């Protein structure tokens, strides 16, 4: 269970995150939506330690994560993927996975043995298969297609067997068809791995179809939370975010 309690973050005078309180039940799948500049990415950065919240607590199974370093938070079980695929360009897919599993097993500093370590293979292979990257395992990451790089980024987060997986726009920069493939993959991961997944998404069709619960952020505040039906009918949401013609169609 991930509980975010009254977290705030200001940049200069701008409140990027303003007193946000949210619970993510264990094993839930939640979409975070909101217009550009709503503070979605900042919210993720606060939870993962990329930014330190000014106030508030972030409890993972009762332990406060606020203000800890990213490696520390990752080790407690919050993994993340990035909006722009964050990978290791010169390593192959399997090298990436083997090295990441090694890091997870606290063997990143081992010098007296050769890479890759035998005990990292099983987990690395499992995640490579899980993400469907098996036939590209010997490719250098920089030579992968955009979609595969995004998958590799997610794979890096999954290697650590996180309790909570945060995906910052898993479908960013993809065409319609690729988007659906990606989101089906995310859904499949959620079902198979039984982890708490929170993802940011712009495409309303996807959000309403996939996510059992939705959080709407606007100007750093929570505008609404609820099921797709509740969000569709919420007057504040319609007013502030979905009221445009473009999105009315989606409703």
């Amino acid at each position: 269970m991930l509980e975010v309690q009254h977290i705030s973050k200001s940049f200069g005078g701008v409140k990027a995150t303003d007193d946000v309180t949210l619970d993510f039940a264990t094993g839930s799948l939640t979409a975070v939506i909101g217009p550009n500049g709503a503070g979605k990415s900042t919210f993720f950065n606060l939870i993962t330690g990329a930014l330190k919240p000014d106030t508030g607590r972030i409890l993972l199974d009762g332990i406060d994560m606020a203000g800890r370093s990213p490696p520390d938070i990752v080790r407690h079980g919050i993994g993340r993927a990035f909006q722009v695929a964050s990978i290791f360009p010169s390593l192959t897919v399997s090298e990436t996975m083997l090295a990441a599993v090694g890091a997870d097993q606290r063997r990143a500093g081992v010098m007296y043995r050769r890479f890759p370590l035998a005990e990292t293979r099983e987990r690395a292979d499992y995640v490579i298969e899980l993400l469907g990257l098996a036939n590209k395992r010997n490719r250098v990451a920089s030579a992968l297609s955009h979609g595969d790089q995004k998958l590799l980024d997610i794979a890096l987060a999954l290697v650590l067997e996180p309790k909570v997986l945060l995906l910052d726009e898993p479908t960013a920069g993809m065409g319609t068809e690729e988007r659906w493939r990606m989101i089906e993959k995310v859904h499949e991961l959620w079902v198979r791995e039984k982890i708490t997944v929170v993802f940011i998404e712009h495409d309303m069709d996807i959000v309403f179809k996939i996510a059992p619960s939705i959080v709407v952020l606007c100007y750093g505040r929570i505008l609404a939370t609820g099921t797709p039906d509740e969000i569709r009918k919420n007057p504040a949401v319609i007013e502030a975010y979905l009221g445009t013609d473009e999105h009315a169609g989606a409703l």
Partner: protein
Amino acid sequence: MSELNVENRAGAAPFVTRPRRAAYTDIVFAIIGFAILAALPFLFDSKALLDFVIRCSAFGLFATSLNLLVGYTGLISFGHGMFFGLGAYGFGLLMQRANVSIPLAMVCTLAITAVAAVVIGAICVRLKEIYFAFVTLAFQMLIHSVILSWQSLTGGDQGLRGGIKRPVFWGIDLTNHVQLYIFSCALLVIGLLLMRQIAQSPFGYTLRMIRDNATRASFIGINVWRAKLTVFVLAALFASVGGMIMSLFVSGAYPEFAYWTISGEGIFINMLGGVTTFLGPMVGTVLLLILNDTATRLTEHYGIVLGVVILFFALGLRKGLMDFAVDWYRAWRDKAKEQS
């Protein structure tokens, strides 16, 4: 359709299968290499050749250790030469003043280097690229000026004069030129083996991850600062051994060993030989020293010759010689595979 783009973007080799050799293969290579080097004095009666190889050992260890920082971790240090100088002066002073055995002096020098590297590294490795380069350079200048001004200890700009005693240890007599040569080669080969092991270990891949994307590395739980500091100290130790070989070779130590130009030469060697292969810096060392010796013999405008060469590598090849050779070999192999 995306497949097609991938092929184009990646150029000639989208599939990279990198065979990983086991540790014992490296050891076999090292033994063969050492055997060849050890045979040289018996095949050629040339003191100049042995001198050349001893200098290659000193600078080769220095340059290869710099590549652990530059090529493997992405830390461009412009002050790595300070540890070369520290090795030479630390060892030279201990031998001249403390009256200890050579192995003990070496171990003590390594300890001094480690302490210095931990302190300097702790300050530097948090800094981003250009700041890291300049602050390491600043420390190099600092150490150089300390050596110049602390005349009573270091002899100032005269260096450590009067020679270094070389008491016999374990039956090894380093006053004998051939034995000094074999000893230097042994240090070189052992040093290279250890660095190769570091580069091919899980830690070596942690360094590669940090080089590629330090942010991502920290988000998979790696303590980036600690890994950088560790490799900074390790590289300093190997550079220090290079300095010790140099100190034994010239039987003293000179302020030039700690001057920033040594660091510059280290970077130059890495550019010449290439940073993407483990032995690139070693090839670069041999090239630079040959270049150095021929250019100084032929002309007094030595700097111009080096400048032209560096421009050729930087603008012409855009990579080091070993990088070039490896790329050429891969292209040739792929072509051969296609035809068969």
